[in-house]
């Protein structure tokens, strides 16, 4: 594998990185501060307690805020049921881009994540499942080699355990800093989903803000059931790229969840407070 060649190369040129691997245990999280002081969409001040009660939906503009993966899990699974799997990955820098090294370290410190995807086993309304969550706070949830590998591992774990798989998507697309490696993650994750087809296992893809590019064009759009949160940006090409290409401004509401529902690419839009109930019901149908 290419890995060996590059590993040798890297050991020479790469400064050692300090990374702490967390112990396996159900995740206990405090409510995040900092990330949610102002609404990123309407810029108005947020009140922490109201926000929590409101499932992190802005109480001014009603837009669901981008959640940390940990908050998403706590909000979705039965209390204490999540056990994280597949930890210990290190993101590498295949093209030796200095800014990428800095970005990775900065994002690790900011989020305490090893990369933009976590997964594990959990229960939702008492039904066992594998749940995976992309975290848009880490490099905009972009998919590089580590995310691609962990998504594939999550699929394989569901396959081995014969559990249904739920993935919450929040991603800007392929991680450009990892170039062609990130492109190949699209093929890798999509072909792994074929395992679930063969085994008759359920895959629910939940599209949240944002779901774009190479992630939309791979596992995100391959759910047996595709749910979306309201008002999320979902698409293939970025709105700015489209505008530059066609030299027109885009119509209001283009590439939103509501737009995709109308065009037939989303099964159902589910507001955040109802998400757990709806997922639970879907799992019951397939139990």
């Amino acid at each position, binding site marked *: 594998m*290419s890995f060996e*060649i590059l590993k040798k190369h890297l050991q020479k040129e790469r400064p050692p990185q300090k990374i702490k691997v967390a112990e396996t245990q159900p995740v206990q999280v405090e409510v995040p501060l900092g990330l949610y002081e102002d609404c990123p969409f309407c810029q108005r001040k947020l009140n922490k307690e109201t926000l929590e009660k409101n499932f992190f939906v802005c109480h001014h503009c009603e837009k669901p805020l981008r959640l940390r993966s940990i908050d998403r899990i706590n909000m979705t699974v039965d209390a204490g049921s999540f056990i994280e799997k597949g930890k210990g990955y290190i993101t590498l820098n295949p093209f030796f881009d200095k800014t990428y090294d800095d970005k990775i370290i900065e994002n690790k410190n900011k989020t305490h994540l090893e990369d933009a995807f976590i997964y594990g086993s959990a229960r939702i309304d008492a039904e066992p499942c594998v749940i995976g969550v992309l975290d848009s706070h880490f490099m905009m949830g972009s998919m590089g080699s580590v995310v*691609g590998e962990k998504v594939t591992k999550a699929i394989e774990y569901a396959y081995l355990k014969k559990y249904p798989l739920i993935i919450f998507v929040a991603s800007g697309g392929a991680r450009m800093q*990892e170039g*062609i490696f990130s*492109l190949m993650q699209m093929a890798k994750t999509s*072909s792994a989903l074929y395992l679930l087809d063969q085994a008759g296992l359920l895959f629910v893809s939940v599209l949240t803000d944002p779901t774009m590019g190479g992630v939309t064009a791979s596992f995100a*759009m391959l759910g047996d059931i595709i749910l979306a949160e309201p008002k999320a940006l979902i698409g293939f090409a970025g709105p700015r790229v489209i505008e530059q290409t066609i030299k027109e401004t885009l119509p209001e509401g283009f590439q939103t969840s509501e737009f995709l529902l109308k065009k*037939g690419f989303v099964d159902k839009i589910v507001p955040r407070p109802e998400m757990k109930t709806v997922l639970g019901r879907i799992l019951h149908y397939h139990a």
Partner: protein
Amino acid sequence: MPKDQSILDLEKKLDQLLKERDSLTDEKAQGAMDGVIDALHQSMKSLTAWDRVLLARHPKRPHIEAVIDALFQDFTEFHGDRFFGDDPAIMGGLAFFNGLPVTVIGHRKGSNTAENIETNFAMPHPEGYRKALRLMKQAAKFKRPIMTFIDTPGAYPGIGAEERGQAEAIAQNLKAMSHINVPVITVILGEGGSGGALALAVSNHVLMTENSIYSVLSPEGYASILWKDASRSKEAAEVMKLTASDLLELRLIDGIIKEPIGGAHRDPLAFYKSLKDALRRSLEIYLSRPDDALIYGRYQKYRNMGFYQRFNVRPEESK
């Protein structure tokens, strides 16, 4: 080794010299020029990554129509995705390859401005990918090998493309191609642009022509997104690992098809010959494989692609 002249400058000079040489009547003077011409020709052997980007996009580079003409017999084009329409940016159909019926699919770029516009500069819409998938499933039904030819800057970013599910169309192709039970062989002819290329290239054997490129975005895009400076695209091409030799070293492709000095368009007949030889060899390998081996081999190949490290973890956590 840095060069101050791009392959296109060299080519221009070469063409000029060849013209001058032809206009000479004196044999001695011609002979003297031959030396210069030969030296210039040889200097076209050492190419930078950016030179290869230029060659991959060269307007005279052999396109799919010419390749099909030269390599296959009795090609019949089939149109449409059966749902929405026919996308001229992707062509597909049936042909004989050394007497064997095969399904041929690839991007169409066109050779002049009118054709470029008609084919949308080889940037497909969802119906193009769905047509390709339809033809691939048909190939699987009739146990025909599939050969795909890639030459696209990427899938089209437009309103209609989004409305009709560009992402969904690409994703379905990726999943379906990985488990098709016939040999799938891909040649990157020119530009292998991102998901728009990959959606026809999840294959048992991916070959790149010597001067083709394959990347997640263009060097211009890489420079402007990551370095906020589109003028550094040359530099981006060098670091991005988008050339055939880079990608072979990384084991992300399976082979390289030699091109004549200065690019495929300098001697198309020689190029078609090496292309045809490569396809014949690759078909020989995969035709003899049982379905399971085809599927498993293809799946494992993509499963192993990735560049990361992992800590030693306790066995129960490694799952």
